[in-house]
């Protein structure tokens, strides 16, 4: 019960930030979308030639899954930003607000466009004729007759758009934009259902309130009720004001902390934040970023600090294969990061979070499997479970090339469900993470890698080029170097990942910090 209350309290503590960002994003996207789709709808209503292509384009946008649309904008903006940097000497943040804004803006357009076109083209031609006959110009006909008559239907379109945008904004978390989706993504990763529920309910409530308020505006137009329009505007102003006030009051953060999408990263993100705020920095988090996204963001100074893993940089960024050993790899990575990007590598945290093949102990013993080489011999009869990333990573190619295995079945899971799957026997072997507390909890054995196909994955602290010489910042993070061993990290991870007596990542970070300061 204490866990539930703590989770709820943690969720509540994040609400001003998440809600504020969510409302700011949705409102901006909706306003920008309206500024584009209203005039476009009017033009399309007037021009038969344009109508088809315009509505077709908006419908096509709608067929792109919203998450994919959001994800697509990041690389596009990144290229633009690099281009802007090289030609005008000033880039912009390709991560976070901008990609989310643009994707949601596109997403908001269809209902407004469609309703504007059908409302205007549906007006009784006799009324338009009358407008001309009483001496209205084209413009006056539009503003005095067509738009007022189309207003209820257009408003209904705006309502639909608002509902879509507020709902879809929850998906902007993975492109680095904080939203109410942070509850959902983080909750899903850490199996914190209070968080998931909290996020869903908050987003649903916000959607419902805005929908009801916009319904008032819709009615005000069709019932000629000025009072309802005022009520709608006042209501919207209250919602927006109340959600943005705490955020505006808090001002800009000094340091952006990047966090990937799993429990260990949430814990380490909190830990970094603790150390930075103790040193007097104000921080903001970008949670649930993909591996490639967060590295790009760091080099572009969109993220200032995050923890990555040596093997990831080695294979994904440096495109290296082979395994020169832990020490050499760390040295080469540090040099490469500095030379190519000006990124500061403060050093290894102490533990490794490596890709490793793991099986239930009883199953492994029954089959006599101790290493990946043994595994390869049985692979054709075994089912493999991985996370979403692993099969497309170079490590997978390297390890399957080294051991030539071909599994009977391959399935992909959310990390949580992957451990669950191996435990229940849905799969025989999984691509586990060596620092995961659940390896011990479920009594899994990690298979040896005699050919050294999988590189080491030392956790390393990376600082963006813009902050690479900030002595105060580097000093604040220094105590984390070499401070956490594998066992301690596994324990901290398990606090968050276990299914009973769960702790929030923040609690785990506090516990971890205590271990560090007592120099356990």
């Amino acid at each position, binding site marked *: 019960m204490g866990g539930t209350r703590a989770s709820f309290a943690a969720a509540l503590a994040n609400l001003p930030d998440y809600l504020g960002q969510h409302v700011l994003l949705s409102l901006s996207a909706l306003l920008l979308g309206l500024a584009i789709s209203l005039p476009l709808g009017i033009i399309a209503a007037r021009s038969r030639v344009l109508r088809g292509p315009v509505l077709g384009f908006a419908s096509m946008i709608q067929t792109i899954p919203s998450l994919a649309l959001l994800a697509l904008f990041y690389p596009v903006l990144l290229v633009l930003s690099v281009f802007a940097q090289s030609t005008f000497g000033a880039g912009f943040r390709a991560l976070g607000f901008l990609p989310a804004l643009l994707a949601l803006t596109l997403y908001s357009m269809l209902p407004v466009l469609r309703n504007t076109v059908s409302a205007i083209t549906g007006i009784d031609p*006799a*009324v338009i*004729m*009358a407008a001309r*006959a*009483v*001496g*209205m110009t084209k413009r006056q006909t539009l503003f005095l*007759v067509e738009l007022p008559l189309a207003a209820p239907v257009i408003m209904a379109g705006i309502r639909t758009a608002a509902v879509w945008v507020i709902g879809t904004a929850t998906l902007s978390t993975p492109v680095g934009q904080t939203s109410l989706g942070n509850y959902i993504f983080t909750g899903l990763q850490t199996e914190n259902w209070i968080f998931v529920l909290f996020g869903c309910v908050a987003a649903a409530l916000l959607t419902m309130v805005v929908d009801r308020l916009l319904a008032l505006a819709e009615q005000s137009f069709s019932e*000629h009720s000025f009072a309802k329009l005022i009520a709608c505007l006042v209501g919207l102003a209250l919602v927006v004001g109340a959600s943005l006030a705490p955020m505006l009051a808090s001002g800009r953060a000094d340091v952006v902390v990047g966090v990937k999408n799993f429990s260990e990263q949430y814990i380490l993100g909190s830990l970094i934040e603790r150390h930075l705020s103790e040193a007097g920095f104000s921080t903001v988090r970008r949670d649930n970023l993909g591996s490639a996204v967060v590295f790009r963001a760091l080099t572009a100074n969109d993220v200032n600090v995050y923890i990555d893993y040596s093997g990831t940089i080695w294979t994904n960024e440096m495109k290296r294969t082979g395994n020169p050993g832990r020490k050499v790899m760390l040295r080469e990575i540090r040099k490469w990061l500095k030379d190519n990007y000006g990124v500061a590598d403060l050093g290894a945290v102490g533990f490794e979070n490596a890709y490793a093949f793991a099986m239930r102990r009883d199953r492994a013993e029954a089959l006599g499997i101790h290493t990946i080489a043994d595994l390869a011999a049985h692979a054709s009869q075994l089912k493999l479970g991985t996370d979403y990333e692993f099969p497309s990573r170079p490590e997978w190619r390297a390890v399957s090339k080294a051991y030539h295995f071909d599994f009977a079945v391959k399935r992909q899971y959310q990390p949580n469900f992957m451990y669950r799957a191996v435990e229940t026997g849905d799969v025989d072997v999984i691509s586990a993470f060596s620092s995961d507390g659940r390896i011990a909890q479920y009594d899994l054995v990690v298979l040896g890698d005699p050919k050294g196909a999988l590189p080491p994955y030392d956790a390393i602290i990376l600082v963006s080029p813009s902050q690479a010489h900030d002595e105060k910042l580097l000093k604040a993070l220094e105590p984390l170097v070499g401070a956490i061993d594998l066992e301690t990290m596994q324990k901290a991870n398990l606090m968050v990942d276990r299914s009973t007596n769960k702790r929030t990542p923040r609690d785990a970070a506090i516990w971890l910090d205590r271990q560090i300061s007592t120099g356990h």
Partner: protein
Amino acid sequence: MIELQGISKQFGPEGPPAIDGLDLAIAAGEVMVLIGESGSGKTTTLNLINRLAEPSSGTIRIDGQDATTADPVTLRRHMGYVFQGVGLFPHMTVGENVAITPRLLGWDKPRIAARVTELLALVRLPVEQYRDRYPAELSGGQRQRIGLARALAAEPHIMLMDEPFGALDPLTRDDLATDFLQIHRELKLTTVLVTHDMTEAFMLGDRVAVMRDGKIAQIGTPQDLAANPADDFVRTLIETPRRRARELAAIMQAGPA
């Protein structure tokens, strides 16, 4: 003074023209009634006069000025147009509907308000009771009165009226028609009025133009037409009210047994 000379109007690339070489001169202060079957080109003729439609060929002069080169918006603001099917703006109140042309002309607020009051009185709808209602809250007859008031609002000297009394019950219809004739004389209007009702045409028209297939089949005073119908078509058209009057008389006599 409205003069149409050799006017033709072809809507699509194919089919017969809607107006086919029409010549028509309407004198100042006159009520000219256009009558004819549905599709004969009556509405199109009105639309050509205030340039809601542009002629394919021919010239239109209003008070001696070539209307085809005038600014159509200005032209329309100085002509009243009462629609077949009324055409009130459903999102505007009665007061706003009546005030629309003065508002477009930039009259000041007190002058507009005074004009609205005056006009509603003219069409016999008490201003306090009707000004703030919406067209949907009115009867068909009341709407047509408002249509008339709106057309008169900017003090035009030309009125174009397309079956203005069509949707009314016979009593109100006669009332409003009589009212209109009085207004027409008082304001010294020049009126082109479309109807398909011969009785109405004869009662209201100083002259009546019978239209057929976009042309004028015959034009003259009601007396001219009654005395010398040009052909069978005109004769049947004129005969209709007389025949009905005779039939009615017969029924009335046979009635009380």
